[in-house]
């Protein structure tokens, strides 16, 4: 799985969650999407964990600055045994 694969899968999730269409790119960040506030973020993380079968460690999601870094984090946690 590459970063692009992860982003493509994230795109279908975002399409369901957000009312306004959002096109995901590696440089897109939460502040670019009006609906992506800290509240939706909480649910989104649970959703992403379930979809990709990963488990993030405490505090690490908020250190990612954009979709690219978020996708990389998903890949990193996915490679763990």
């Amino acid at each position, binding site marked *: 799985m590459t970063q692009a694969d992860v982003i493509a899968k994230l795109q279908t999730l975002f399409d*369901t*969650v*957000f*009312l306004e269409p959002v096109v995901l790119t590696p440089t897109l960040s939460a502040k670019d999407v009006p609906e992506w506030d*800290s*509240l939706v973020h*909480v*649910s989104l993380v*649970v*959703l992403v964990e*379930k*979809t990709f079968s990963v488990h*993030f*460690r*405490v*505090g690490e*999601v*908020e250190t990612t600055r954009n979709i690219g870094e978020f996708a990389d984090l998903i890949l990193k946690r996915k490679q763990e045994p």
Partner: protein
Amino acid sequence: MELKNIEALKSLLLKDDPEFWRRLQTLTGEGRDFDDLFLLSSLRKKAHARQLACPAMAQEKVRLAILGGCSLYPFHELLEHFCETAGVACEVWLGDYDNYIAEIMDQSSGLYAFAPHIALLLPSEQRCRYSGSLSDSRQMQQAEAGKVVESLLELARKIHDKSRAEVLLANFLLPSRHDLGAYRSRTLGSDWSFRKWVNLELGLNAPAFVHICDLEFLAHRLGGTQARDERAWFESKQPCSAALLVELAREAAHLIGSLRQPPKKVLVMDLDNTLWGGIIAEEGLEGVELGDTSPRGEAFKAFQKYILSLKQRGVLLAVCSKNEQAKAAEVFEKHPEMVLRMDDIVSFKVNWEPKSENIRQMAAELNLGLDSFVFVDDSPAEIEIVRQFAPEVATLLLGPDPAGYVGQLQDCRWFEPRTITAEDSARTDQYLSEARRKALQSSVTDMNAYLESLGMEAILSEFTAVDVPRLSQLINKSNQFNLTTRRRTEADIQALMKDPAYIGFSARLKDRFGDQGLISIVIGRQQGQTMHIDTWLMSCRVLKRQVEDEVLNELARLAVRRGCARLQGVYLPTAKNEMVRDFYSRMGFTLTSENEQRREFELTMKSFQPVATKIKVTRQAYDPS
């Protein structure tokens, strides 16, 4: 849930197909995982944004305040979702994170400006912990637990006193780690014992306006270690795991719904492979599986025992089976292992007619709405017929294994009592004596002689404190003979009893066949020389028994004594109270105004003559002159 379900729902939405809502409701009912429900809720919001035509909400919006010692998002979103898909639209006010004590104590807080109908409080787990040492005396530990309970109930009372809101109070999660080992249950100082104690005391001491949202039970059902999520607490102050959050929201929505809707009243049962194993017409009395001689027989007997316990809680039992009447009746009369007997059954419809028709007939005979019925059968085809032709009836399709029957019925949530009154358990007896009374009616041709022969005695009583639960129960469940269908909580009734502008009385009726219990309620509000009839309702069991005449006599007597010159009555139509549309005219009132929403009537006291009846009346509590 499979992703294809969500995708199918999404395509309905993109086609603006109103079928979306029905499908959303079904998937929400089946949904267990947080991510599924979060997606369903997102799609629901999208549907609103696209203005997809949605089914009308029957009632006014419920103003719901949520307060707590944790983050209330995404909890409130799930709760709104469950409420809306259950047909209850909510307007939500959210408290600030862990600010509930100030919000409740401060009269000028946003909570009270919002004027909630219902307030849900999720108290802080951190405040439910023994502060001393594990080895302190039990008295000290108990005293501290008592203080936690008292302070929470005090907060609930404050909310209720200041806003009249019903309060949903969540209790506390228990620990799920091995910490302390077996010692945890040898002291009240451990979180485990301390919280168990607090939870028990909360439930046992909660006043009627407090409804416990049993987080301890929900976590137990889910599994303790699945119930918590430490990371979610550190990162965003979530009270529990996402999985438990779903169950908590579902439970809160259920409680909100049950505050508005009365529980079901009748359980209609199939016979073959429902109450016993096998087919009676083929296998005969000796051949059916029932009783302690085989595991399958034991399972069916256990199901009957549970059903009998429902009867003791006030549920009416009825039978509807495609069978030979005589053979089926013989099992009830002669099988030594039968738990349910003919005396337990208020209606026994064993024939070859469609079950939907049989249930309709039962509803007519028992004077109950179809929406009071639950039908249980092991055959998908029979369930489907009832769903299609009597859609108001709730149905339960039993699974393939009778060992699961009790659990299925216990989890269906249709017969949950709020307060059990003594009259609930007497109800079957009332309906059975009604059957005998009808037999007498058919043998006596002269109506007056019939009424005379009943030897009826009524007690008319001013509202009394001890009757409040029964008054509230009847006010909230009467639909047909109910002129205004105004619902009231126990607290509302207590407030009204203290208000000098109001009069309120109830009627009880008994006759030589049995005690009908409390069967009619009237509330009047005096304004100058006019007595407005705020509420007039009666149980349909006692129709045509002259109770309404005696009630009017009494109402007139009270009005005149208070110096009123007229009674003013209003009929507010609902889907169910057509039968009293012309009630006031029949009682001698004059129609004074009329439109789609209301019909108003008046009766002048000067011209009123009390009606003589066959009922012997006793007055209680107020001046009996």
